[in-house]
């Protein structure tokens, strides 16, 4: 048998058949849905007069437009409320499990899948959300799809998809103090640009990736889409199995060990062919921050804003437009830039380790005057854990407030919007124009760099405090 990448292994295991001169018909093991990209898909089924084919393989949550305060009250914003209610009605009609608002398992779709053990190695996973790549951290083939494709999966539990090319990104060596997995991925995207992996499915490997916790690995895979990749994955190992063992929907006891035996076969052969291979040195990565309006526009927090796009992917006009939008000039240092808002949360950095690292940093310190901070747990379980571990108390003592779970200010579909012209250091995944609210200016960074900004009120290298 010829040598294979882990991606090819999983993909091949799920091909039901191939359309002549067309895409593969790929079987989907797990399908996640949420309130924003699913209503039209259910509407399509209704028009066709067909049921959901395998309702037990779809799990739903309400996350994108839910409020992050007073979740026990009806949602104030009418259109959001209608969407959330529509999701509940659709799930009930078709027999789909829903972890709706106020359910103990509610939360951001890419946070709850892993924490409940629904996401497992070797699976094919899709969701009508581009950050579905998060689940690749478990060694699964996970990717975002559009609503027509959501309808397709509901209708036939398969998706028609052409096989992407494969890319391996090796991060060799060890990262320095204060450098997190968020910095690693922002660094990679800054090197290859926001379209640099379009058409590819990425495997991350190397010592710096292997040494990361599951949650840190999820942060890396989460942002694969920000360089255009179809998805990103990391081969499963002991770290993966330990994370999964005992989780609600993970296999139990002997069954779990039997699964581990299968999962251990999920790795790329040493001579597996990749269409493209990149190697980076972890030691060269510093805490990162973005200065522009796409995730590829990142630099070390200690650096100055470039004078032109050194990757050659942005014309002078677009480069200037980004700087204008941000109100920045070429050559200015990022450190010391005023910060009005700090947002910690999202499917990128809304997990318990993110809250721990933020809390540990701000413990015994005070939030800077004039900074508004939104600390938003990724799920009910994260919220509960944060309270149980004393993180809520630490945050409150330092002048912060822990809100209720949801996507929140990452995409500003709920009330959590950064006002026009204001500067936000955000642990989320996109700094596009208006992403966090019309006219909002986003600087993407790690929870540690966000903590340093929250304490000082300006962009700050977190290592100064470590």
């Amino acid at each position: 048998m010829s040598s294979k990448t882990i991606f090819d292994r999983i993909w091949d295991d799920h091909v039901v058949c191939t359309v002549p001169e067309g895409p593969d018909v790929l079987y989907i093991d797990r399908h996640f849905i949420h309130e924003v990209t699913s209503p039209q898909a259910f509407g399509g089924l209704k028009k066709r007069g067909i049921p959901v084919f395998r309702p037990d393989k779809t799990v739903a949550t309400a996350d994108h437009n839910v409020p992050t305060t007073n979740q026990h009250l009806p949602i104030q914003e009418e259109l959001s409320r209608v969407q959330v209610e529509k999701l509940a009605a659709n799930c009930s009609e078709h027999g789909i499990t829903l972890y709706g608002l106020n359910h103990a398992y509610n939360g951001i779709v890419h946070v709850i899948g892993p924490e409940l053990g629904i996401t497992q190695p070797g699976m094919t996973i899709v969701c009508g959300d581009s950050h579905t790549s998060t689940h690749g951290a478990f060694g699964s083939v996970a990717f975002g799809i559009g609503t027509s494709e959501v309808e397709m999966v509901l209708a036939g539990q398969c998706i028609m998809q052409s096989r992407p090319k494969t890319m391996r990104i090796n991060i060799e060596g060890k990262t320095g103090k204060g450098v997190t997995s968020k910095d690693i991925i922002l660094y990679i995207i800054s090197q290859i640009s926001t379209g640099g992996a379009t058409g590819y499915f990425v495997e991350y490997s190397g010592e710096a990736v292997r040494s990361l916790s599951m949650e840190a690995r999820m942060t890396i895979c989460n942002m694969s889409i920000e360089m255009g990749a179809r998805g990103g994955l990391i081969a499963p190992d002991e770290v993966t199995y330990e994370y999964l063992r005992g989780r609600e929907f993970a296999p139990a006891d002997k069954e779990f060990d039997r699964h581990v035996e299968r999962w251990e076969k999920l790795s790329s052969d040493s001579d597996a062919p990749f269409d493209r291979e990149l190697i980076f040195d972890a030691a060269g990565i510093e805490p990162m921050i973005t200065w522009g309006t796409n995730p590829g526009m990142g630099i070390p927090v200690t650096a100055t804003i470039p004078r032109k796009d050194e990757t050659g992917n942005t014309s002078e006009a677009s480069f200037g437009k980004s700087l204008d939008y941000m109100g920045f000039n070429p050559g200015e240092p990022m450190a010391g830039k005023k910060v009005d808002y700090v947002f910690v949360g999202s499917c990128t950095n809304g997990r318990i380790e993110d809250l721990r690292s933020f809390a540990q940093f701000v413990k015994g310190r005070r939030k800077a005057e004039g900074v508004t901070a939104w600390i938003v747990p990724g799920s009910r379980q994260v919220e509960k854990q944060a309270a149980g571990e004393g993180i809520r108390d630490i945050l409150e003592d330092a002048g912060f407030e822990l809100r209720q779970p949801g996507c929140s200010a990452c995409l500003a579909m709920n009330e959590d919007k950064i006002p026009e012209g204001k500067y936000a250091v955000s642990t989320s995944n996109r700094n596009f124009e208006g992403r966090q609210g019309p006219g909002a200016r986003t600087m993407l960074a790690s929870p540690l760099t966000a903590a340093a900004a929250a304490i000082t009120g300006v962009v700050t290298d977190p290592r100064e405090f470590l």
Partner: protein
Amino acid sequence: MPIEKFTTLVSTCVPLPAENVDTDQIIPARFLKATSREGFGENLFRDWRYDNAGRPRKDFVLNDERYGGEILVAGKNFGSGSSREHAAWAIKDYGFRVVISSFFADIFRNNALNNGLLPVQVTGDFLSLLLDCIVKDPRLKVRVDLEKQTVSLEDKGEYENFEISVYKKKCLLNGYDDIDYLLSMKDRIVEWEQKTEL
């Protein structure tokens, strides 16, 4: 359920030379709250098209009376970011049937094709030529021929071939729908499920 067929289109173009036009620009998240597929064109490029008070921004191309037509010609890496199909719906609903760019984000490309909106990928050189010609002559007509897989500048003779999968081409030419096709294979899916350890 058949989709709208696409064979040949001859139209004037709307130039949008910016690179990396992301789906948050095409349709901001706050406009994704509808539960039907219609009406998104109203908010296409909302924050580039209107100011905060809802007044049209004169410097944005959709508000420039010189330009119009069913072909949007955009800079490299069009449609990056979110998987929202609402982006394709908004472009189609506004009245475009083709987007020409030198590079498309993967999910956007699929979403467009699933809605009968044809993404036409051309070389960077051809894109520059096209943008130049449109700006010089906004009445310039461009022909997109799906059968021949060509995009050409009418009256100028300049043309380029574009790629599309044989399957997707057949779907668009005939108005076939992926989901109908998948449903026709249900027995094979069930058979596959039975022989596979899930």
